[in-house]
């Protein structure tokens, strides 16, 4: 929908393995996976910048752990 720009992304072998594994699991191309990762990172980063906390919850025990973003 928007104009696209191209960049070269240098990844280590293990990082590329993870990109390929996740892309395969999610049914996405590597480009779409990176775009999705950027959306999620921006979403979490914005919330933390506003002073909000982001938690993950164990569905069985309901235990919550705060998501720490070290940036």
């Amino acid at each position, binding site marked *: *929908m928007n104009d696209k720009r191209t960049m070269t992304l240098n990844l280590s072998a293990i990082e590329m393995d993870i990109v390929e594994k996740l892309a395969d*699991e*999610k*049914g*996405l191309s590597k480009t779409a996976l990176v775009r*999705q990762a950027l*959306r999620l990172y921006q*979403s979490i980063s*914005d919330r933390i910048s506003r002073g909000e906390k982001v938690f993950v919850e164990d569905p069985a025990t309901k235990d919550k752990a705060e998501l720490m973003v070290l940036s």
Partner: protein
Amino acid sequence: MSDKPLATFSVVDRETNQPTDLDLWSPVAERHKDHFLTRWRPIFDRHLDEIRANGGNVDEVVQLRMIQDAHWQWASKADAIEGRLDWASFALEGQGVTQGLMFAQTAGFAKEPSQKGKPLVKVVLLASAPWNRPTLAAVPRFKGVGRILLGAAISLSFHEEFAGRVGLHALPQAEAWYRDVCGMTDLGVDGTGMRYFETTEEQATAFLAI
């Protein structure tokens, strides 16, 4: 802001019985927010005033008239998501007025067992203008606004390589429409207290083919 619509749909204006073009815009522009405040809101407020004046169960009448969305803050929500990569907004415009609005998130994950954990588009807000609703207008002006907007969400899902997967929580009066007309999978009432629906790739393809 794009200077041309994403798509144009020909829909019959049921007041004049003439075909009319409805343009799909994304993202929502200032004029669409203004239309909500100046054209939609006064109608909602008039109904809410009338309901309160008549007494009785306000929530029940609000549900019967399908105006649970009367309090939605479209304008401030549109401002809040500006520049956010995980949100998309759409407006359907015809005859110089906003006929429908939709906000969707593009960072959700599917819950339906066959596609659990895969990315999907989550429709967060979807509404047609009050004069298009059978509960508010004797002759709803444009039929199919909701269908066009849901189709836009499915198209966005395909565009983002999400295979047409779309999820949403339905207001009670819209549950049958999503399940029986749109063919979405009903995953039951969840922690939100609302019924959650999702499309699979097959359902999304079938929806767009109609």
